[in-house]
């Protein structure tokens, strides 16, 4: 429905300002519109995102279900000392100990105590 003519001087002036766009400018505005629409054609709606998201969700659900299906009692038993070793490894290393490691290994191999030397 066309707008009724306004008696508001501000609106009248702005309507006139809009309507007096010259032909050259009008052509450029049309070109700008076509360029923008051509860009829309080059970037089609990403419809593949929906099925891809569905597949990803299904994969995550299946993986979680597979993990939960095997209760912890079915998991292979771990040697508890492995955690103690990890603690030892995590502690700051005593460099003197490692320097003497060869010597201590030799003592052990020969069933000797350090005090025997």
């Amino acid at each position: 429905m066309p707008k009724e003519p306004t008696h508001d001087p501000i609106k009248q002036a702005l309507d006139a300002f809009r309507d007096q766009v010259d032909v050259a400018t009008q052509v450029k505005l049309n070109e700008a519109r076509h360029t923008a629409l051509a860009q829309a054609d080059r970037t089609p709606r990403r419809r593949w995102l929906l099925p891809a998201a569905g597949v990803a969700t299904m994969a995550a659900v299946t993986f979680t279900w597979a993990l939960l299906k095997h209760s912890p009692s079915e998991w292979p038993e771990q040697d508890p000392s492995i955690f103690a070793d990890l603690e030892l490894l995590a502690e700051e290393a005593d460099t003197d100990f490692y320097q003497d490691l060869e010597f201590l290994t030799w003592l052990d191999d020969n069933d000797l105590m350090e005090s025997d030397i």
Partner: protein
Amino acid sequence: MSEQALNRSLDDFLRRHQNEAYAIALVSVKQPADALDVVQEAMLSFIKSYRLKPSSDWRPLFFRVLQNKVNDHHRRQKSWLRHFFSGHDQTDVAAEQASEAPSPLSALNIQDQGNEVIAAIQDLPSQQQQVILYRHWQELSVQETADVMQISPGSVKTHLFRATQKIKSLLGKSHA
């Protein structure tokens, strides 16, 4: 909606609003070439970001993008001028620019009365100018105008009151 139907709707929407967008840009940036650039950038960004929004939301969204592009243009201008004239006295530079710049309305052959109103709108501070364009002329709601300008609805009302008072005062003086 199919791609073709969507593109037809977008084309129709932009065709109906391109002259208004150009007028808004020209009032704000003053130079026709700059106004064209601003409108083209706004169309590109609008299509890229909002074409899949419901078409009932397109108009305020398009004006919001347009206003952002106008603001970007002003920021670029300020930064360029600051860089280019960094060794000059800023007051002298502003005076030089004001005297050398072509009249914003020189390219348009509009009636004297309209000319005065447009000149009065161009003289308004930026936010008062925007409420006149979006709220008063385009008749966006207070909330839509607030969204376009990224200010509160209360500020929209305040700016609109001050802007209309100022224009009336300027027009009253010129006819006195």
